């Protein structure tokens, strides 16, 4: 009877300590999760700012201005375009241009 009581008492103490540790661990993990969430939030802020920046820099008006003024690019006239079409049913006979 006494042995059983002692055994139960020891178990009780172990369980109690277990709860305490588990609780502590849970808090610690929770803190970590909170930290992670904060980081997510911060990265999201950064992401949306980068998106903004990218779309502002990639605005067609700006790209065109740089291409034309700084790089001296021009749109080639249609007459200078050569279009190459791969057509599965088409066989080119000699002497044909189009």
């Amino acid at each position, binding site marked *: 009877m006494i042995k059983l009581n002692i055994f139960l008492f020891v178990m009780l103490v172990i369980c109690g300590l277990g709860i305490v540790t588990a609780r502590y661990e849970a808090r610690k993990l929770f803190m970590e999760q909170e930290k992670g969430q904060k980081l997510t939030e911060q990265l999201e802020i950064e992401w949306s700012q980068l*998106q*903004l920046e990218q779309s502002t820099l990639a605005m*067609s008006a700006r790209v065109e201005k740089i291409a034309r003024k700084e790089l001296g690019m021009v749109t080639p006239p249609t007459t200078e375009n050569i279009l190459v*079409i791969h057509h599965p049913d088409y*066989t*080119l006979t000699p002497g044909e241009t189009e």
Partner: protein
Amino acid sequence: MKVLFNPSRKTASLIPEWRSRLVLGFLLTSLTILISRAVYLQALNKDFLQQQGQSRHERVIKQNMQRGNIKDRNGEILAVSAPVRSIWIEPERVHATPEQIKQLAGLIGVKEAVIRQRIDSGKKFVYLRRQLPPALAEKVTELNIKGVNLKHEFYRYYPARELAAHILGFTDIDGRGQEGVELAWQDMLTGEDGKRRVIKDRIGRIVEDVEQIQSPKPGQDVILSIDSKIQYLAYRELARAVKKQHAKTGSIVALDVRTGEVLAMANYPAFNPNQRSSMNNEVIRNRVLVDTFEPGSTLKPFVVAVAMETGRITPDTLMETSGGKLKIGRAVIHDVRDKGNLTVSQVIQASSNVGAAKIALLLPPKTFWEMLNRSGFGAETGIGFPGEASGRLRAYNTWRPIEQATMSYGHGISASLMQLARAYTLFATDGELKPVTLLKRDMPAVGQKVISRETAQSVRKMLELAVQPEGTGSSARISGYRVAGKTGTAHKRFKDRKGYAKDRYISSFVGFAPASDPRVIIAIMIDEPSGGNYYGGTVAAPVFSRVMEGTLRILNIPFDGPLGNLVISPVRTELEDKG
């Protein structure tokens, strides 16, 4: 159990009996009091007390969800929400030293006096400054003033500025859509805010999650059918034309023929949605959809189409238009130039009002009305844009002959530019009216058959003639592609009385390319050009030419024009993999 209290005789004789009784009684009474108190607290008042306890360390926090982005068909961002912080105070709880208020004023850019005034306002909730950058707001928290709080909010930013302003619309400061796509797809864009109950410790850190009361749902992205490159091109060319022609306003819309998607839609003048000060009721109107106008000669192909459908004319039927005048009742219809008798094709090519009127008078009113009705005039296009106008198409039983005649060349009927552009899908396809959409579709849309294939093809041929050097729309041509289209020059109605202004016009052009296999329809409307030119062929057609050329290039559509720069690759196998 053994009795523990076992007084010896000695002590018993020394202490009077009543003392132990007194002590016992006292202890019992105390015990009763304690038990009843415990019962009172535990059983009767438990809920109240537990609630009070929880409210001291439990908090419900709101999780604001970001509004969805709006993107173009290639995934480029047109509207994005950036997180910001708003600073609000609980005036009753504010405890701040003058030094702190001074620092706060410096940080958020609000005058000290204003802050003091708000603190003394006696309200429960006052905003000090809204929508600050998060980094700046962080510094405010570092001041650690009691009663000063942060609220997480989002700021809506439109990187394309005025380019797509009319399509996108804008939101109010609380992030609710007010106009355009922001309003039309409000439900899809807004997320659902989440709520969770947490336990906070003494210094305000969250130490435990109790429960998620409401799980947050982030807003969905809306992918539009707009191509931002084409949109840019359309806006730029439109703006240039409106300025050059000293016009009041201008609108342009580009449609994908196969899918009915809106590739570009712009108005000028436009506004910058990032600056509220640039907005007013006039400038925010998306005129392509919410305004109607009398389309003028761009309506002529429809009367020709229905007359051909019912077998009354062929493209070569000769219409007697010599003299360039037609008297109906007391009214006289004029042509700009008398060109003698014209075939039906030439009526379209030279844009003869008399010719069109004569064709219209061959038809019973009901037949003509049905054609216009089935082409989408007088009804909304179903695009789902807020405030869309349906235009005006009067019931045929109220038509007088003169009205039937003028309607053939686009007077006495009104339509939005979108309706007009969509109606041209009849001729760009083989007679189908395609449903239009602002959302990316990517799949060919099935339209409603309105006219036969043969009619559609012959009208398309006529429209191609209209942009030939002899036609009214010759400046709409593009090298390398075959183009088809129709000019329109309409007198404006007086706003306050009946009749038409002699010197105020609406110039328009609707056309499509490549004519051999149409892919894109572009419609342009310029309101009151006053720089000397006012014909659709000189004002609107050049805009068409430039925008269409760029659009076809952006979409990689092969040439079909009479140019020798098309090479069909004989080397098949090498190209096979790359497609």
